[in-house]
């Protein structure tokens, strides 16, 4: 009887499947992600940065692991792609290629898989409520600091994230999005949601 261990989909297995998927999907330039989709994608990366203090190194390392070393050889190239988010202070004009977008989505999915234990802690209702509240406050504080540092705070969307009563719900949705994007089907789910007509 064949009974594989729980981690039979180890890092290598997961990464090779991502590369296959990437080659398949990046060659099909069918989808164009709109302005809101780009905003959302960049905000997901900001959430990752808020959760992980070493995320800038982790992003480059992960990009290399999943085969996007040529797309993101250094942090400047990654920043250039992320700067297409219209909410940023230093916003770059022009459209991103479908390959760049796919690479960013893969990066978000791989990083969320890496950070899954943290995402799980934040989302679980079985954690002690006091501890959970503290975690959320810490996350919220760091997320808002990063938003103030990088985004154009005169934009209404950013002001809503920083001051609105619903900002906690918004942050929770971003964390849930990351958690649901961490599995093997996460790429397709996240990509499809970024292609929604509302984006």
């Amino acid at each position, binding site marked *: *009887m064949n009974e594989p261990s729980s981690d039979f989909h180890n890092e290598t297995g997961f990464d090779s*499947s991502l590369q296959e998927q990437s080659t398949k999907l990046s060659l099909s330039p069918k989808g164009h992600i709109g302005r809101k989709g780009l905003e959302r994608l960049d905000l997901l990366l900001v959430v990752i940065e808020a959760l992980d203090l070493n995320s800038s190194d982790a992003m480059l390392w992960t990009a290399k692991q999943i085969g996007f070393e040529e797309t993101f050889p250094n942090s400047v190239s990654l920043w250039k792609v992320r700067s297409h988010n219209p909410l940023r202070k230093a916003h770059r004009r022009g459209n991103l290629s479908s390959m760049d977008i796919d690479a960013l989505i893969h990066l978000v999915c791989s990083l969320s898989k890496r950070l899954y234990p943290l995402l799980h802690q934040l*989302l679980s209702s079985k954690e002690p409520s006091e501890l959970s509240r503290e975690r959320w406050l810490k996350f919220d504080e760091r997320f808002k600091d990063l938003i103030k540092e990088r985004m154009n705070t005169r934009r209404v969307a950013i002001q809503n994230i920083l001051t609105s009563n619903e900002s906690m719900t918004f942050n929770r949705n971003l964390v849930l999005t990351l*958690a649901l994007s961490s599995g093997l*089907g996460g790429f397709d789910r*996240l990509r499809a949601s970024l292609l*929604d007509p509302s984006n």
Partner: protein
Amino acid sequence: MIKQKFIYNHNLASLEIEGLPDFSNGQTEGIIGILSSWKLTLIGSTELEGKKEHLQALITQVLPYARKQISGISTRKVNNLLPVNISNYGDKHLMSLSSSREGVQPLDLYLDDAELSDLVFCLDEIRHDSRILIDWDIPLDKPMTKGELVRNSSILERTMPFFTGAIALIVTSGLLVILPMPTNIEGIVPKQDFSSNN
């Protein structure tokens, strides 16, 4: 032994699958082509088991539901005939399971976001496992239609553009009615009626 057993664990969720290769389709040992049983354990919750149809219903309901959650679309329970139903219930996810056995009451499970993502992770692994050659018939992840997104919005959000437009039209028309019409505009010579000269 020909019978295969695969286990998928992710935090609170554990899914066990048992089956055999479908030799009539040329499948070899180490493959599951015919599913004989499955067992899902959610720690702190309950243990579920059933036939292939039940697992298929679980996969075809839960994965599209997760896709909708990413788009922020809330789902209400609609079809009581399905063996598995999943819908939003406050800040939780209500998964209703109906047994095919007579006299067994439906089971309602309230999953939090973390449990849902664990379950989705396990189901994703089954769906993408190259050793399981079963057609689950899962719809592809596609962008939502405008209709689906509109249905999810509140009545206020849906009617706001109409009322804003209507109010703007009424106010503009009212202002134009109030404004007096010019009686004599300098520099404009009235047209001559040439037909009266003849």
